[in-house]
């Protein structure tokens, strides 16, 4: 069985978001990490590998420095890694990204494709289902649990107030939630091996089954009209009082604002 896991390198917004004095985001101070939902997807694939001996290939589209993240995936236990990188692919929206990734996936053997539900930088949750669409595969989004049974997968698909237990025939695509599992750590020896391995690097020209009209900034139907860092809402009052005075203070404010 062959599993392809699509992963993305993202800036770490978890807890460590820092702002410049003007209220804009200090991107330079943020670490580049493997997107958490994608890491859960990788862990799910590695657990299937532990059980069935499946081969796990990780695939990313990004800057050359995404090599670090691919090595991390190899150090966790992935068998092979593919980096799709080319200036011509830059500026892609989810349509162009999914078209490109789908063209890369087509070059690989796969029974199961796992992506994260969404990346913490874009939060769109679109690329996974759109890859499935380009490949004409069944898609199950928002997976909380994945089991392989013969030629099928059985997935707990999360909704707001319920879950569906869903069965799909492979090949298919699943998008993983970070709640799916607790990803494993790398091992020290795994790290050393990862740096001895070859990462396959594909540029635009290696993706033959891909139309120029569907890649990069020009191939993206959506265009950014304006982007700005959100300046955070300013702080209001802050008081440090004893408990009794604190209660009086809150009561006064609630009255002032006609809440009570």
């Amino acid at each position, binding site marked *: 069985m062959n599993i392809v896991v699509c992963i993305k390198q993202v800036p770490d*917004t978890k807890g460590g978001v820092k702002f410049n004095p003007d209220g804009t985001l200090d991107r330079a101070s943020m670490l580049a990490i493997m997107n958490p939902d994608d890491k859960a997807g990788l862990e799910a694939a590695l657990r299937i590998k532990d059980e069935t001996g499946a081969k796990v290939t990780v695939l990313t589209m990004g800057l050359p420095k995404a090599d670090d993240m691919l090595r991390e995936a190899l150090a966790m236990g992935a068998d092979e890694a593919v980096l799709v990188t080319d200036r011509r692919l830059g500026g892609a929206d*989810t349509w162009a990204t999914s078209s490109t990734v789908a063209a890369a996936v087509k070059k690989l053997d796969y029974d199961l494709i796992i992506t994260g539900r969404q990346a913490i*930088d*874009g939060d769109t949750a679109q690329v996974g289902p759109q890859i499935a669409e380009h490949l004409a595969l069944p898609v199950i989004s928002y997976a909380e649990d994945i089991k392989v049974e013969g030629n099928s997968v059985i997935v707990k698909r999360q909704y*707001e107030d319920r879950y569906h237990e869903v069965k799909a025939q492979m090949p298919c695509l699943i998008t993983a939630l970070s709640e799916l599992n607790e990803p494993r750590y790398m091992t020290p020896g795994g790290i050393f091996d990862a740096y001895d391995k070859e990462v396959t690097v594909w540029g635009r020209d290696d993706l033959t089954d891909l139309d120029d009209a569907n890649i990069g900034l020009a191939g993206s139907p959506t265009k950014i*009209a304006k982007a700005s860092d*959100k300046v955070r809402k300013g702080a*209001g009052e802050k*008081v440090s009082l004893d408990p009794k005075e604190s209660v009086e203070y809150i*009561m006064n404010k609630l009255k002032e604002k006609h809440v009570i």
Partner: protein
Amino acid sequence: MSLEEYKGVAIFAQQVDNKLSSIAFELIGKAHELAADLGTDVTAVVLGKDIAGLADKLGEYGADKVVLIDDPALETYRTEPYAQALTAYINEYKPEIMLVGATAIGRDLGPTVSARVKTGLTADCTSLEIGDFPLVAREGQEQKHNQLLMTRPAFGGNTIATIACPDNRPQMATVRPGVMQKLPKEAGRKAEVINFNPEIKENNRFVEILNIVKNVTNTVDIMDAKILVSGGRGVGSPENFKLLEDLAEVLGGTVSCSRAVVDSGWKPKDLQVGQTGKTVRPNVYFAIGISGAIQHTAGMEESDIIIAINKDETAPIFDVADYGIVGDLNKIVPALTEALKAELAAQN
């Protein structure tokens, strides 16, 4: 594709168990504004089985037309039959704007359909308006008018981007629940009802639903609450949430929580406020023992009044709070509950 062929604003009116979701009415509310700017009308598209009864309510909340796609394959949400149906609707009726809720259904259906009809999709929008693209005329580039400008947060709520889809139709967006305002109900208002049968075909992409398990919670949806009493890890233990529940009860509010609380297993996921939880904007939001990481504040900073209680005076929650109290929640919260009880008793 001729862009001019596409007319009207359509919304996907999500139903679950043949009950329309609140997002359907929110989308109609926003679609109405957009349609007014464009001089066109609003169509609500409902997919399901035995759904004819849902049309009246959509009309009362502002839909001009209701398209019903009634098919046994659409009884419970599955990506493929829903995508076939909505794609068929788009190809047949050619709306210039197609809005879908950014729900667990919409965020699966939206991307699938947008890829199938080959158009752009902007995720999780918090603001939609009609305007020009580019915003300001640029030499050598045609400025297009009457474009849908879709604004959305990204980067964990730290950046805001406005996005257009100038060369493809329909212009598609998923819209964050709880952000758009529904219109007041107009009793007796009728929409034109159209039954559309696109003939859904079973294929290899159909999945089988083996089981449906509903979460057993009977709490009010925190997105509908006017007053939220929200607790973080600082509350200390699941038992200690009793203090917050007492306060919520006396105020007629609801308890919600931060991600840390859900991760610790103290409260269920549907009470979680924040980037990976729900976006809320109640009249009053109490943040109690919540440090206020950006992931949390992204989901609550639009609240009208934010009152924070935290013993750590450097907690970032104080940066978004209107009223911040540095102190021990274990002392302040019960005393506040008592004071409110006394006050409300006096008022009656």
